């Protein structure tokens, strides 16, 4: 699957949502910590309803969410308050978050908004207790070094985390998010990936963004010339972002091909639907047998197209199924995949006859309660009609490995109104000019190479590490950069893999340990066992004397002499060749309490005496 992207007219843009590591949330004074759902100390439930707009219309995305009215449940914690519960007006816009978002803006050469106004953006999927997300536009028009334009940065509140179905967790709601939107200036999947990686690096350079899975999410906008703008939400892993673009291009190309076939076949969608419940009274399909109602719709000229793969693991039928699910049904069956699932060939023939389907037609059926089935058939007909136009404008969600499923229509532009409970904030030129920009991580890595002689790949790893600050401090106190980097990156990772609680190791103790190793008072070999002791809460001094009590030169010599005496015959036979095997014996005895260099030196001396 490789396309000529230029010929297809690929245009892609990204929206990056990065959680900011501020002390408090964006509109309340709760901490920005995520909790274990087991720790919740309260639960409540609510309904959300879209409000009628001035035109008497409900936003089209909102209307679809409302098709099934059901309550949303929320878990509250001892770190959430009435603001998250939508039971108290918001606090003023968090100044720490505003400063950070403006710093990011300044790093991309953007112009700040003179007066930031917080808006309410309608979101009624339950992820915001209020039914809207608070968001403010803080800066406009920036450029990346590679030329792509940054359209805007918004500062918005993070949504509640969906635990399952209609149940949400309030710990995440209200964490500040910077939303960075690029222009649709990328024309290949690889360009999308490199822009996302660059912006990610820039954000990490502030040292004030959250880290870990889910703390940064990319939405990708993709269109090809004959297709339509589709927004794919929730790409959490950078490594998949180019694949998401490739697969969306593939999907759009295939949908356009299906459109062409439908038009060539003079295809159509039947107006009515058929109640075919009676046909499946005795069926072997347990889903159909159990159903209160089964309705079918005939799609004329669609034979073979509903089952046609448009993306790995996705067919036109999957798209119809996504639309139908909005009515609360589990899915659908279509004749491109029947007989199967316990439905016999005879039943398919009877079904085709009942709806008057010919050999070129496809029949789609849905089984559930009558109300849901009628709703679902309407949605299937709607999606089938859209196939004649090729690619519908949609918001989609990423599936594993980079395919996507329909989520909702692209929201109309007009679904925002002012958050009157939050006063606007004026951003003066003096304030913006005074913002200090952090060093880019790429620049910092270059500096490490230049100033400390660190290997370039270690330098890159070091600047992305949480322990970058410790590295700088250690090197500042005379520790060699390689020793510091190997310990802070390699040794700690290995210990952590072996089950040590590395987070519990105090940074100050780590630096002290490195300094002592560098000055020769602690052996390099003692680093892992000492850190392991530190991770259990042992003091550095105690850890060193317990794990590696400093052994004097004379004590080392005594141990060497004893080892030689025990193997005198062997040593006489082998001569200086005995040094290698003896080294292992003595090292094991000392378990890192003496420097290997010292042991080797003394060993050679003593073996020399015997020989």
């Amino acid at each position, binding site marked *: 699957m490789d396309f000529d992207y230029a010929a297809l007219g690929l245009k892609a843009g990204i929206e990056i949502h990065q959680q900011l590591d501020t002390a408090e949330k964006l509109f309340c004074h709760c901490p920005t910590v995520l909790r274990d759902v087991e720790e919740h100390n309260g639960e409540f439930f609510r309904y959300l309803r879209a409000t009628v707009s001035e035109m008497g219309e409900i936003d089209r995305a909102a209307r679809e969410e409302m098709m099934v009215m059901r309550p949303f449940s929320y878990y509250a914690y001892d770190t959430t308050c009435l603001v998250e519960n939508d039971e108290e007006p918001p606090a003023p816009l968090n100044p720490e978050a505003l400063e950070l978002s403006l710093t990011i803006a300044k790093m991309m050469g953007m112009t700040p908004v003179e007066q930031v106004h917080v*808006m309410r953006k309608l979101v009624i999927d339950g992820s915001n207790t209020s039914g809207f997300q608070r968001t403010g536009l803080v800066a406009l028009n920036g450029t990346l070094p590679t030329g792509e334009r940054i359209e805007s940065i918004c500062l918005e509140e993070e949504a509640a985390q969906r635990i399952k179905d209609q149940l949400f967790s309030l710990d995440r709601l209200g964490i500040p998010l910077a939303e960075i939107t690029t222009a649709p200036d990328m024309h290949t999947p690889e360009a999308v990936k490199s822009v996302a990686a660059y912006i990610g690096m820039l954000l990490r350079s502030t040292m004030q963004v959250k880290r870990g899975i889910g703390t940064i999410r990319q939405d990708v906008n993709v269109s090809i010339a004959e297709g339509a703008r589709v927004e794919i939400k929730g790409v959490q892993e950078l490594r998949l972002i180019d694949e998401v673009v490739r697969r969306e291009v593939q999907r759009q190309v295939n949908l356009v091909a299906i459109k062409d076939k439908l038009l060539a076949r003079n295809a159509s969608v039947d107006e009515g639907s058929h109640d075919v419940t009676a046909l499946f009274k005795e069926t072997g399909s347990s889903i159909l047998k159990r159903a209160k109602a089964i309705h079918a719709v005939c799609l004329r000229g669609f034979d073979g197209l509903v089952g046609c793969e448009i993306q790995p693991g996705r067919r036109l039928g999957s798209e119809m199924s996504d639309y139908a699910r909005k009515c609360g049904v589990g899915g659908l069956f279509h004749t491109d995949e029947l007989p199967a699932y316990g439905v016999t060939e005879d039943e398919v023939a009877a079904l085709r006859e009942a709806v008057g389907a010919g050999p070129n037609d496809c029949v789609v059926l849905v089984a559930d309660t009558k109300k849901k089935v009628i709703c679902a058939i309407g949605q299937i007909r709607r999606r089938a009609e859209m196939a004649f136009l090729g690619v519908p404008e949609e918001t989609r969600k990423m599936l594993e490995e980079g395919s996507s499923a329909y989520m909702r229509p692209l929201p109309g532009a007009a679904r925002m109104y002012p958050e009157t409970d939050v006063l606007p904030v004026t951003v003066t030129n003096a304030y913006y000019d005074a913002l200090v920009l952090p060093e880019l991580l790429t620049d910092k890595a270059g500096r490490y190479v230049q100033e400390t002689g660190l290997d370039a790949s270690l330098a890159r790893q070091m600047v992305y590490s949480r322990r970058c600050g410790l590295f700088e401090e250690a090197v500042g106190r005379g520790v060699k950069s390689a020793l510091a980097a190997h310990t802070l990156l390699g040794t700690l990772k290995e210990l952590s893999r072996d089950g040590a609680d590395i987070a519990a190791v105090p940074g100050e103790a780590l630096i002290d340990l490195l300094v002592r190793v560098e000055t020769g008072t602690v052996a390099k070999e003692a680093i892992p066992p000492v850190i392991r002791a530190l991770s259990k809460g042992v003091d550095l001094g105690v850890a060193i004397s317990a794990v590696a009590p400093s052994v004097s030169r004379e004590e080392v010599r005594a141990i060497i002499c004893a080892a030689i005496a025990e193997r005198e015959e062997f040593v006489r036979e082998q001569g200086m060749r005995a040094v290698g095997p003896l080294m292992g014996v003595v090292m094991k005895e000392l378990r890192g309490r003496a420097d290997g260099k010292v042991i080797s030196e003394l060993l050679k001396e003593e073996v020399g005496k015997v020989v």
Partner: protein
Amino acid sequence: MMESGTQVTCRYAGTDFDATYITDRDGMAVIKLNNGYNIGVDPACLTVVAPAEAVKGVGMVVKQDTSLPQLSIISTGGTIASRVDYRTGAVTSQFTADDIMRAIPGLADIAQFRSDVLATILSENMTPAIWQTLATSICDEIKNGAEGVMVTHGTDTLAYSAAVISFMLDTPVPVVFVGSQRSADRPSSDNVMNGLASAAAATSDLGEVAVVMHSSTNDDTCAIHRATRVRKMHTSRRDAFRSIGMAPVGSVAYPSLDVTLSKDAVRRRPDTEPVLSARLEEKVGLVTFYPGMNPDVIHAFEGYRGLVVSGTGLGHTSALVIEALRSLTDAGTVVVMTSQCLNGRVCDRVYDTGRDLLAAGVLEGENMLPEVAYVKLMWVLGQTNDTEEAARLMATPLRGEFGRCSDNGF
């Protein structure tokens, strides 16, 4: 100044943005960009492109089902329905029956409605004069065949209004006060559930003035509170309204809208005419006693016909304040003692201070809420000029505003 909705371009950050002018604020022009965001900019960067478009009317037609009970909605300014103009971001409160029914579509399945917009005020600006208009208007609606009346009201002073209407109007049908704690424009607003539940209560077997609001933070039940026993007990929560000193007289389940009435609830009395006694004495005050209170505060009420004191504990004030109250009662002011504990009965016969207050001519307000005692005293002094008669009426439960026995809490 430009008209809101004017189409403009804004030269900003090196780009011309198409935008809609909204308003001026702090010397900046607030504009709405095409992506929906408002920003504040220097007004000098704007160029007018086109005048504001006229706002189109709402197309949806509301059908009333004439086989359903007839209810009236009287608006005083509290918002239970609003509409958002996403073009300008303006939120407009909705008051006519049609607009409210459009905003809360489920209402059309409960009753047929007519509406009366009595006032459009913030509830803290409520006055005795508006209370009188309101009582008269409710009475007229009932006489004209309304089987129940809903009054939409801002929540700040909703309890005062509901209580005073209880005294002014002896109603044979439900008169239900309702509001919303969370603004009606938000999808999570309590307006829809409170609106539907109050309509259900207004068609029920209830026959008194009540307040219907969320009973918990969940969207599951509304409580029906007796108007003379309810108080706003939280600044912002949905379940701010609480019955004090007694359980709510009923509940409305959601979304079923099943109404349950307790045995204490006054029942509907068909074929009974409402009785209106709308006179109120406005020279009545309400004052909270606090340690260190200067008696001048009490002297400021000289010339008033009534004063309700919200005292400490069982109903106490300092000795200095007792002297000031004595001078008021000597001059003919009716002084009623209530408690800032809110829960429990006043008893001025336990401690010397209390006995001194009684000796100073202060009346015990039983377990009346201070605000309820205040509106009751306004009404009582509107009905009689005789201090003795006023004292007798204050000591008699007229609308369930206090019980002879205190609720034992079980």
